[in-house]
C-alpha cells in the first residue's frame, strides 16, 4: 500500500527544481543538470502511474516501466549529444556561458 500522492509531489518538486536549474544557471553543463532533473521527474511520473494503475492489459500494465526505460535511454543519448555540442561550442567560443549575447556577429553589425 502506498499513497501515490507522495511520488506525485516529488515529481512536481523535481520538475520545479529542474526548471529553476535550467533558467538560473549560466554554465551550459549546469543547465544540463536541470534537464536531467526534469527527465527524472518524467520517469518517476511514468513509473508511479504504471505501478498504481489497475489495468490488466499487459501492454498497458508494463507501459509505465518500459517507457521509463526508454526515457532513460533517450536521455543518455541526449546527454551524449548535448555534451558533444557543448564541447564544440567551448572550442569555438572559449566559454559556455549561455547568458552571453546571442550572436556576436549580429551584435557587431547592429
Amino acid at each position: 500500500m502506498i499513497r501515490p500522492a507522495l511520488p506525485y509531489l516529488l515529481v512536481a518538486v523535481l520538475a520545479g527544481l529542474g526548471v529553476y536549474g535550467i533558467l538560473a544557471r549560466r554554465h551550459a553543463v549546469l543547465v544540463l543538470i536541470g534537464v536531467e532533473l526534469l527527465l527524472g521527474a518524467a520517469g518517476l511520473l511514468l513509473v508511479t502511474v504504471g505501478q498504481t494503475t489497475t489495468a490488466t492489459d499487459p501492454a498497458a500494465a508494463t507501459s509505465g516501466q518500459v517507457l521509463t526505460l526508454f526515457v532513460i535511454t533517450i536521455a543518455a543519448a541526449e546527454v551524449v549529444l548535448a555534451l558533444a555540442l557543448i564541447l564544440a561550442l567551448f572550442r569555438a567560443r572559449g566559454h559556455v556561458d549561455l547568458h552571453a549575447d546571442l550572436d556576436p556577429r549580429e551584435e557587431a553589425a547592429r
Partner: protein
Amino acid sequence: MSVVDWPDLTWSDLQLPSLPALPQISIPGLSVPDFWGAPMQWLVLVPALAALAGITLSGRSNRLAAWIAVGGGIVTWLASLWQLRVLLAVDGHHASGSVGPLPLGELDVPLGLAVTWPLALVAATVATVALVVQVYSRWYLWYDPKYPAFAATVSVFTAAMLLTVVADDVILLVVGWEVMGWCSYLLIGHHSTKTAARRAALKALVVTRTADVGFVLGMVMLAAGARTTSVSGIVEHWAAEAPTRGLVLALVLVVVGVAGKSATFPFQDWLPDAMEGPTPASALIHAATMVAAGTVVLVHLFDLLAVTGPARVLLALLASVTLLGGAVMAFAQADLKRLLAWSTVSQVALMLAVLAAATPHTGPDAAAEHLVAHAWFKALLFLATGWLAVLVGGTAMTTVASGARRYRVLRRRFAWGLLALAGVPPFVGFFSKELILGTAESAATGSGGLASVVVLSAVGASAPLTAAYCMRAWLVLDRPTQIEQHAVTYQQEPVERIDDFFDEPQVVHEAEGLERAESAISSSARSGTTLLAAMTLLGSLVALLPVWRVDVHLNLQLLVATLLLMVVAALAVRLAARGVRTRDAAARIPARASLAAERGLGADYAYRLLVATPVVALARAVTWFDREVLDAWVRGAGAGSRLLGQAGELLTPRRATPALALVLGGVLVLAALGVVSR
C-alpha cells in the same frame, strides 16, 4: 375649291397586280432534310462562316480570300432569294430558331428568327449590295496586304446586318447592332496608317457606342417587363396594356440608340468623318447596313413605337432636324464623298422620320421601302465615286469636276443614281419618297398627332433641298471638259475588257488615253455597278410589289407640288452655277459658312468639350484618388506591420536565458490556462 379635280388615289391602286397563286411544286419522295435548316439561318451563318474561313484559311493570299468572300456572298444572296421563295409559299411570315434557347434562369431567351415581306426584301437588298461590294472591293483593294481582313470584316458586317433584319429577339438585335458598330470601326480604320482614318474609326465607335447605352438599356427594359427577349413576346406584352412610363422610357432610350447608329442629330458627326474608310466600306455602311439598322430595329418594334407618343415626338424632332440639316450640309460640302455622306445622314433621317410619323393605320413599310430604295442608289453612287476617285485621284469637288464627261462609262451611273436620290420619276427614289409623303400626310390628317405634322412639313421641305444638292453634284460632274469645248465631238471607242475578276488588273495609265482607262476596273466590279444602276430603275417594280402592307391615301396635289418645288430648286441651282468655273453652285456660299459646314459645324469640338474632356478629367481625378486615398490602407498596413515588427524586436531579449525564461513562462501560463479552464 380646287382648280383641277384631282383624282382620288391610294397606294394600292399604284401597286402591281398580285401574282396569281403559284402552282405548288411538290417533288415527291425528296423531303428536305432538317439539316438544311431555314434560309434565314443560312443568311446569317454563311457570311459569318465565310468571314471565319477568310481569316483562318487565306493567310497572305488575296486571291483565296477573295474566292471565299465572294463565294460566301453568292451563297448568302442565294439564301436571300430562297427566303423570298419560302415566304411566297408560307404567306408572308416565316419563323425559325437559331442556336437554341438560352438557359438564363427566369428570363426566357428563345433567340428566334422571323421574317416578313418587307424584312425579306430588305435582306435580299442587303445581300445583293454586300455581294456587289465584295466583288468591287476585290478590285479596289487589289494590292492591299490587308485585303483578307477587309473582306472578312465585310462578311461579318453582312452577317450582323442580316441578323438584325431577321432577328425576332432583342438579344439578337443587340448582337447584330453591336457587331456592326465594331465592324464599322475596323472598316473605317482600314487604312490604319493614316491618322485621320484612325481618328475617324475611333470616333465612329465611341460615338455610336455611347448612344448604344440607351439602346441596350431600352432593350433590357423591354425584355425585363415582358420576362422574355422575343420581339413578338415583348410586343404582345407591352401592347396589351396602355403605354406606361416604363414603355415610354424604354422606347425613348431605344430611339436615342437608334439616333446614334443612324447618325441622327446630335450624333451625326461621326458619319461624314467615316469617309476616311475605303470607298467599298463607305458604300456598305451607308447603303445597306449600319445606318439603316436603326430603321430595321424600329420596324421590328413599330407596334410599340406607334402607340408611344413621347418617343415618336422625340424621334420626329431629331429626324426632322437631321433631315433638313443634312441636306443643307450636303449642299455645302466641297468633297463629293462628304456630300454623299451628308445626303445619307439626311436620307436615313427620312426613314426614321416616316417611322415617327406613321400610325398603326399606315404601318411602317414606307420606311422599309425607302431603305431598300436608298440601298440601291446610294451604293451605286458610292461605288461610282470610288471608281472615279481611282481614275482622277481624289474626291474633292474640283478634282472630280467633269468626271462624268471624261469617263463616259460613269455618266449613266451617276445620272441614274442622282436622279433616284432626288426622287425623280420613274426611278426608285420617287416611289419610296412618294410613299413616305403619303404616309406622313395620311398620318397627319389621321391620328398621327404632332409627330406626323412635324414630319410632313420636314419631308416636304427636304424634297427641294435634296434636288438642289443632287443638281449641284451633277452640274459639277457633268461640266464639259476642255477637250470637249475645243473638239465638241467626243470620240467614243468601244470599251476594251482587258481583265477579269481573278486576274491582276492592268493599270492603264492616263498616257495611254483616257478612253481606255475607263476599263481599268475588273469586269465583275463593273457589272456589279451596272446591276445597281439597273436596280435604281427596276427597283421601282419592287416598290410597287403588292407585298408592302401600306394603307395610304395619296394626295396628288401634294405630289405635284413637291415635284414642282424640286424642279424650281434644281433650276435655281442651275442658275447659281452659271458663271462659276467649276459649275459648282456651292461656290456662291460665303467662304466662312462653307468652311464651317465642311467641319461639321463644330460638332466635333462640341463632343470633345461636352463629353470627352470632362470624362478624361474625371478619369484623372479617379486615378489620383485611387492612388492617394484608396491605396492608403494597403500602404498603411505595410507600414503598420513594419512598426509592429520593430516593436516586437525591441521586446525580444537578446540573451538566451531570459528568452528561455520567457518561453517557459509562456508555456506555463498556457498550461495553467488549460488546467484552469478544464
